[in-house]
């Protein structure tokens, strides 16, 4: 074990800032949606920021992250620029994908962010191929794939785990079990414990409190150690909770509630990963209110700047679809 088992104070403060940035960015997008400002829809990960932050803290630009429809947090935690995210979701050509992809497809390949994905589960095969590239590159790089409890029921998970186990792919599966797939409580559509599915392939499993960013960080320290040493894949099931709606249009659709407002409020109150880290830092006397406030402000400012950047952006030229569809080049 070459890594420290716990994040030190400065690492904790970085995690805090990352979570703040994700939270502010997404709350902004939620407001934007409500105000009719967004061209498309958004799936927000409010409440789940600790998973993205804790996992991506251990990755560099040479590592890949493959994500899903709830991918803003992964994008930001992996080093994607907030302004490129916001501009993208605003449909501006200054966005990370020049306004072509939007929320469901945010990507920055230069930073190893190989794409959110609108097809549930489809990021898993893509990640498997990226991990194969890592293996062939043989440079210690690795791939992380984020997916939900719902996506775990797509067969490609089993297929991919078989590949990864056989070929010892440097691939980390991170299942963000947020208790729901759209409007279906996980237990109603998912048999057994998801991470047990990995065990049949001989893939080591860790189950972690996905709202405790330090725990996620620690798990990831062990996972990167395992994976980067050539031992093949690992599987992390992060227990978490989606505090906001499945997507921002939900209230227009769902007539019979699939969860109680009390449950949501309780999670918001007691299990907010940002609050949890702040309180721990204070309890341990590792940071005072002022420090925490400063980080909060810094994040807020960053997001404000990103929004201004997005607002100032321009719509892409009309014919770019045809232009970007194909490279049109040969090697």
């Amino acid at each position, binding site marked *: 074990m070459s890594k420290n088992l716990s994040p030190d104070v400065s690492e904790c403060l970085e995690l805090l800032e990352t979570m703040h940035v994700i939270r502010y960015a997404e709350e902004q997008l939620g407001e934007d949606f409500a105000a009719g400002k967004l*061209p*498309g*829809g958004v799936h927000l990960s409010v409440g789940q920021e600790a998973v993205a932050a804790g996992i991506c803290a251990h990755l560099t630009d040479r590592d890949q992250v493959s994500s899903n429809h709830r991918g803003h947090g992964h994008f930001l935690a992996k080093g994607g620029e907030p302004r490129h995210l916001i501009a*993208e979701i605003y*449909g*501006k*050509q200054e966005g990370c994908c020049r*306004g*072509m*992809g*939007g*929320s*469901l*497809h945010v990507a920055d390949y230069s930073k190893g962010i190989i794409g959110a*994905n*609108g*097809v*549930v*589960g*489809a990021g898993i095969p893509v990640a498997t191929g990226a991990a194969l590239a890592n293996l062939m590159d043989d440079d210690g790089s690795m791939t992380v794939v984020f997916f939900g409890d*719902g*996506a775990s*029921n*797509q*067969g490609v998970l089993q297929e991919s785990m078989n590949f990864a186990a056989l070929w010892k792919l440097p691939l980390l599966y991170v299942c963000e079990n947020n208790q729901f*797939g*759209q*409007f*279906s409580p996980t237990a*109603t*559509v*998912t048999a057994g414990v998801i991470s047990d599915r990995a065990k049949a392939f001989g893939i080591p499993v860790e189950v972690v409190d996905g709202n405790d960013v330090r725990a996620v960080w620690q798990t990831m320290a062990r996972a990167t150690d395992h994976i980067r040493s050539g031992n093949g894949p690992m599987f992390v099931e992060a227990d978490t909770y989606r505090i906001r709606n499945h997507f921002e249009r939900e209230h227009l*659709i*769902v*007539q*019979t509630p*699939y969860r109680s407002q009390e449950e949501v409020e309780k999670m918001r109150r007691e299990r907010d990963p940002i609050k949890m880290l702040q309180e721990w830092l204070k309890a341990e006397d590792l940071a005072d209110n002022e420090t925490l406030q400063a980080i909060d402000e810094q994040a807020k400012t960053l997001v404000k700047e990103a929004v201004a950047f997005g607002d100032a952006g321009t*719509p*892409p*030229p*009309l*014919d*770019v*679809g*045809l232009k*970007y*569809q194909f490279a049109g080049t040969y090697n």
Partner: protein
Amino acid sequence: MARLRLIKAINEAIREEMERDEKVFVLGEDVEASIFGDLRGLFEIFGKGRVRNTPISENTLTGMTVGAAACGYRPVLHIMFANFLFTGMDGIANQMAKARLMSGGQIELPITIIASYGGGRANAAQHSDTPYSAFMNLGGVHLVVPSNPADAKGLLKSAIRCNDPVLYFEPAGRGGEMGDVPDEEYLTPIGKAAVVREGGDLTLISMGTTMRMTLQAADRLAEQGLECEVVDVRTLAPLDEDTICAAAARTGRVVIVDESRERASAASQIAAVIAERSFEQLKAPIKRVTALNAGLPLAPASEQYLLPSVDKVMAAATEISKNVRVSE
């Protein structure tokens, strides 16, 4: 006649057919909550046994319908976005399209799959395809594409009663559109196109999402003195070649409007049929107004650029009308 939203017409069709035949059941992801509203209330009426909320597993879902149908049931699978048909493609292309043929006709496969299709709403490339054209070539599935509430109901009832697999393409984002729907029970036949407007100068042929712009274009062309006959194809497989070719032959000038991408599209198929069967009556090149050959971007104007529009229909119509006048 009641005025109903399209979504409600769909809802009524399923409810009526479930009441009529207890072998009909609905399955799919979040069919309890009904993300598009088309299934709203069915769970409350028919319960867990007949409205089956499923895991996210399209490959198994499409294949399951084949097993359930071969054993006497009439599954109605709601797949949400038509792009997810591709996610469950084997069950469609290799199983349901072929199982009856391969069995020498031993079984019937009364399967309905409902899929919402189409762009123009900044849903980005994976939630905006108009993929029915690719399914037309499979040979073993029927395809229907309603454009209004009356057909939405009548075609869906026919689809559910049909003893062969039917893919039912619901025009995305048009659920709120109102239309007259007969009060008494009726079926819209599978395989029959409808002439929805008469006019002797030009024939416009369309289906589903692009019918509205086609009719708008017809109105505007009429203002310019060009009277259009308009055909709503309604069923893409089997294709009602007789109605289509007769309409094409009556004017000799044809514009086909289709939200598919251009290549190997429904529009191309219709053009090919006309070029073969109504050649002698043609007076001008057959024009197709389709999506261009690319995925759809998020950015709304860039997305719109790739899609058919009233202006593009007008331009195509005007072009072949000019063309004819010059040569006459």
